[in-house]
């Protein structure tokens, strides 16, 4: 295993680095995390000539300079300082042919590390279309490295790249004169003086050049204050001998001058201006006025499509799980096992799968808008607006995805450069109205809110209320983000840079693969947790069982048979008795007891023990609440008749005869659902992405408390 040579793949963001990596390794990949940071570590095995080579896909970066433990990963891996990885035997730099200047800047830094390096000139086809002519032979000669032109998303050039890598591993590293000899000299001096562990000379060179950077911090941390003072002296000595005020300005100037010389020798650009249609489209989507109109139109179209198209599929899935469950229940011997399999496991799986259509539709549209280049323009347009709440333009796509499901949305926050804005985005996402809230909203709104029409029947109160709940979520998210940034994470905004991709038609294959990935994340990450939670909740609602109730109902069923009614009437009476038995057993169970125990806490919201127990049951995954309500209200497996559950809820009474489900209580319950973080998978993914249990727990407590308060206020004010 460890005998395999290691090749590190590096490059700027959006150069198609991962596509190249995927083409080389295929399915032989492993994903993990670098210890202590939320950066994914992706390694894979590629077959070159007759041997296997290990590849590591590094996070996209413009420079080897680092400002935090996350951005230092690249240099750490390349220098062999990352845990679990040897020092790479070769580097593969993936460059974007349409944006060669920035890629070659990174090359200019990387070639001084003394490791053989090859350049994959990706997106050659796009560059051709734009009128950028790059002579790979000339460029190769200029750079002193093999240059392989390719179009990785079409699989072009991959074979040549394999051959080049195999050859590269046999070759030695080229000798390159350093462009910052002053800094290098000081770095060598520092190394001799302090011998800091895990800080090879190139890392020290970065410490000398980048004032306030990650490597400076690390040197101070490992070698103490003496090293800090020595570093400052070294920096000013190097700056003086370079004749510059700032070493980093000096580095950028020298390197870009070198890059421009390379470009001049090997690249001929006759940039074709975008066509009239393209130019018109560009100005329409980013113009302050028409841009906002286009934005609103696109968003309404997305939501319309998601809800209109997904509904029939969701109904079909619902029916399928319902029917199969009922069929199997009839044929299994009655008892705990049948109940576990059908009411616990099967309906748990159903609770997950039912959201797949909406998630797939929304992500298909979001990914399409992203890949065609519109999302970047919308983020650009909306950045100022989002920043009012402490977010960033880059938060936009994750927030939008939050309307489908918070789990992939929170994972998508990795695109947000600034750590503070990213955490604020993570906190705001669970408040976006995800598809799991919809069934609850639909049941409560259609059941208890009068259907009033306004404006000659154009506008319905139901629709208005639903819209209101969406807006409530958005406002709640904005306020939460603001609180996060103003109170918890105070400080100046971080860095922001974004490259506007060109408008283009997305590649359907790439789109499909990404979509599959999102669906898999949802099914695996959310699905396993939701299904487990469903089983757990089933157990809470099933155990302990009362023998007295069971015996009572055995007698009752015997009585029904004894009456010798017509078959249909017997069946009806039996069904009723079964449902009632389940309801009574549930009241006796742990879940029923919990509901009664916490009833006082939710009394200010107007809930009785049944509602409290259902909400507790829906705590790990809010969508199961309807199923639990069905059992609590003795509907048995007849929940598919939503109207019956609604009728039962209407009939539900306090002991003094007042109805439980008043309009005020329902409004409060709706508001509670809009804010509550009732989803274990979301809590788990917050923990993972924020890399802190404190954040996950904080979000849970804050949102639950806020939901309780808002629900209580709504109920009290409306009552």
């Amino acid at each position, binding site marked *: 295993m460890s005998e395999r040579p290691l090749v590190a793949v590096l490059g700027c963001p959006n150069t198609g680095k991962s596509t190249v990596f995927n083409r080389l390794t295929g399915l032989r990949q492993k994903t993990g995390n670098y210890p202590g940071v939320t950066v994914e570590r992706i390694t894979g095995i590629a077959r070159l000539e007759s041997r296997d080579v290990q590849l590591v896909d590094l996070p996209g970066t413009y420079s080897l300079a680092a400002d935090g433990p996350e951005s230092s990963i690249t240099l750490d891996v390349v220098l062999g300082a990352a845990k679990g990885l040897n020092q790479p035997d070769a580097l593969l730099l993936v460059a974007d042919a349409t944006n060669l200047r920035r890629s070659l800047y990174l090359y200019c830094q990387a070639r001084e590390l003394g490791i053989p390096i090859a350049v994959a000139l990706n997106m050659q086809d796009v560059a051709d279309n734009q009128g950028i002519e790059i002579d790979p032979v000339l460029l190769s000669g200029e750079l002193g490295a093999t240059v392989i032109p390719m179009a990785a998303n079409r699989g072009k050039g991959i074979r040549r790249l394999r051959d080049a890598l195999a050859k590269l591993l046999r070759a030695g590293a080229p000798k390159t004169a350093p462009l910052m000899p002053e800094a290098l000299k000081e770095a060598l001096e520092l190394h001799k003086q302090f011998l800091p562990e895990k800080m090879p000379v190139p890392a020290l060179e970065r410490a000398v050049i980048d004032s306030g950077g990650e490597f400076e911090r690390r040197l101070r941390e490992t070698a103490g204050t003496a090293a800090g003072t020595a570093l400052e002296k070294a920096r000013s000595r190097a700056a003086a001998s370079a004749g510059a005020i700032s070493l980093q300005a000096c580095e950028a100037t020298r390197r870009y001058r070198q890059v421009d010389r390379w470009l001049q020798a090997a690249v001929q650009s006759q940039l074709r201006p975008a066509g009239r249609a393209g130019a018109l489209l560009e100005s329409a989507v980013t113009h302050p006025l028409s841009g906002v109109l286009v934005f609103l139109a696109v968003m309404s179209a997305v939501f319309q499509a998601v809800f209109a198209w997904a509904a029939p599929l969701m109904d079909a899935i619902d029916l399928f799980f319902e029917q199969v469950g009922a069929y199997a229940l009839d044929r299994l011997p009655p008892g705990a096992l049948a109940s576990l399999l059908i009411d616990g496991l099967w309906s748990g799986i159903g609770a997950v799968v039912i959201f797949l259509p909406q998630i797939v539709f929304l992500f298909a549209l979001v990914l399409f808008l992203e890949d065609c280049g519109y999302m970047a323009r919308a983020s650009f347009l909306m950045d100022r607006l989002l920043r009012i709440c402490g977010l960033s333009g880059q938060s936009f796509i994750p927030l939008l995805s939050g309307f489908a499901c918070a789990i992939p949305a929170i994972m998508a926050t990795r695109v947000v450069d600034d750590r503070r804005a990213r955490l604020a985005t993570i906190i705001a996402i669970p408040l976006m109205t995800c598809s799991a809230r919809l069934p609850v909203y639909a049941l409560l709104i259609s059941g208890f809110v009068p259907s009033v029409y306004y404006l000659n029947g154009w506008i319905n109160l139901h629709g208005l209320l639903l819209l209101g709940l969406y807006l409530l979520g958005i406002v709640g998210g904005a306020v939460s983000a603001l609180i996060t940034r103003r109170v918890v994470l105070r400080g100046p905004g971080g*860095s922001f840079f974004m490259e506007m991709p060109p408008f283009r038609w997305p590649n359907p294959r790439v789109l499909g693969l990404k979509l599959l990935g999102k669906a898999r994340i949802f099914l695996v990450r959310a699905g396993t947790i939701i299904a487990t939670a469903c089983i757990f909740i089933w157990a809470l609602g099933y155990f302990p069982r009362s023998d007295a109730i069971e015996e009572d109902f055995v007698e009752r069923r015997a009585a029904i048979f004894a009456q010798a009614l017509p078959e249909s009437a017997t069946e009806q009476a039996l069904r009723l008795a079964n449902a009632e038995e389940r309801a009574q057993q549930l009241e006796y169970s742990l879940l029923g007891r919990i509901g009664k125990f916490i009833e006082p806490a939710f009394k200010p919201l107007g809930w009785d023990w049944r509602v409290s127990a259902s909400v507790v049951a829906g705590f790990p995954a809010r969508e199961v609440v309807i199923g639990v309500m069905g059992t609590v209200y003795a509907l048995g497996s007849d929940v598919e008749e939503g109207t019956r559950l609604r009728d039962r809820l209407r009939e539900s009474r306090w002991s003094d005869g007042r109805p439980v489900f008043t309009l005020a209580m329902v409004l409060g319950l709706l508001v509670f659902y809009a804010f509550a973080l009732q989803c274990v998978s979301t809590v788990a993914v917050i923990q993972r992405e924020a890399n802190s249990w404190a954040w996950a727990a904080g979000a849970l407590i804050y949102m639950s408390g806020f939901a309780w308060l808002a629900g209580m206020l709504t109920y009290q004010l409306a009552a």
Partner: protein
Amino acid sequence: MLDSQPGPTSNRIKLAKEIGLDELPTGCGSEIAAVRGDGRVARELLTLGLVPGVNVRVLRRGLGGDPLEVSAGGHPVCLRREQTRRVRVLAVSDPD
């Protein structure tokens, strides 16, 4: 303001009067004179190719004039106003 004291270098100073990149109107271009500061923000700007001597142009602005898309040496990038303020460009003609 700068050329109120005519002297041997006043002509050069007048030509080299600097303004922030964020002050350039959309569609206008100039040459980078300096990138202010010696920390992370300056480093990022330099890395992206906003280097003294390079030609820059403001391509477009978001709602409220922020962020800006600028092209540096022919390569566009979107930046916030507070970042572009650090980039000093030559005001070719007096803004008045």
